[in-house]
């Protein structure tokens, strides 16, 4: 506009034809007035809506941030609980392991004692059986030998004598 004014034929900032200026101004004002009349309300409404929307978005962002903070705090709390629980589990496991170890050692010792006692009993029984077998074998051999001696020495005279003695005993 300055350039147009500067290039005007009258060397002033307004057109050389003042009426053109006036009519242009009037037209401008009319147009401007119409624009204000028709566009200011919707513009204000649009701005207000935009302001409200941005406000809502900011509020939502604040809520989301608060919610995220709450979740974070909750997660941190859970992590803390999990750590405590893990520590408790480890402690329980150690206690249980120690108890099982004690029980296993006691059972092993008990089993060892029982096995030792059973072995001693088995050994004693085997020894007794072996002695009985030996005694039985010796007795059988002695009886066989005695029977052989008796039968070998039974001649006719002794057989007759045995019969005579039997008859005498039956008749007595």
């Amino acid at each position, binding site marked *: 506009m300055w350039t147009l004014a500067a290039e005007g034929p009258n060397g002033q900032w307004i057109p050389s034809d003042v009426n053109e200026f006036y009519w242009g101004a009037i037209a401008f004002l009319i147009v401007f007035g119409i624009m204000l009349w028709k566009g200011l309300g919707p513009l204000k409404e649009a701005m207000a809506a935009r302001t409200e929307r941005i406000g809502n978005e900011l509020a939502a962002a604040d809520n989301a941030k608060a919610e995220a903070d709450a979740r974070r705090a909750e997660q941190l709390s859970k992590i803390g609980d999990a750590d405590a629980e893990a520590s408790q589990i480890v402690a329980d496991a150690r206690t249980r392991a120690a108890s099982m170890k004690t029980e296993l050692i006691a059972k092993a010792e008990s089993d060892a004692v029982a096995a030792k006692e059973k072995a001693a009993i088995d050994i004693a029984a085997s020894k007794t059986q072996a002695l009985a077998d030996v005694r039985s074998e010796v007795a*059988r051999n002695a*009886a066989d030998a005695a*029977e052989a001696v*008796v039968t070998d020495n*039974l001649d*006719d005279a002794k*057989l007759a004598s045995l*019969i*005579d003695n039997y*008859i005498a005993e039956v008749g007595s």
Partner: protein
Amino acid sequence: MSDTIATYADAVQQIAKAEGDGTVETQLASFAQALQDNDELSTTLSDSSLPVQRRQQVVEDLLGGRASKATSAVISMLVAAGRAKDIPAISKAVSERGSSSRGREYAEVRSAVPLTDDQTQRLAAALKKSTGKDVDINVVIDKTVVGGLVTQIGDTVIDGSVRSRLTKMRDAFN
């Protein structure tokens, strides 16, 4: 004693009684002794795979003229009936019935060696003194007796055998 043995003994006893002189009873006892002494003979006469006629022929060959016809017939009948292994038990039952019918006791005496007549008479006298009855003695040769005698009268057993003493000795050792 089973019913079967008793039934056969009754039948043979009737035959012996019909013969009257005790020959059947005595000869049957002798044959029973021969069976007990000879396992091969006992097995042969009990062998059901052999024809009956063959087994009866063996009996005839063994007895020949040494036994009465009644005794031969009785033994042949028992063999044909498949009762060869039961002959000793039947003979014993017949002897017991014979003694009983004569009012005497029957004694089965087991000995490793035969008894002399003197020993038999003295044993009979001793048993009479012990039981109060006259006793018919049937001596059965049994080597397992070893020495001495084992006498059975009815249900009573008088065991004076060397075998029983050896058995007691074995028991004492054990």
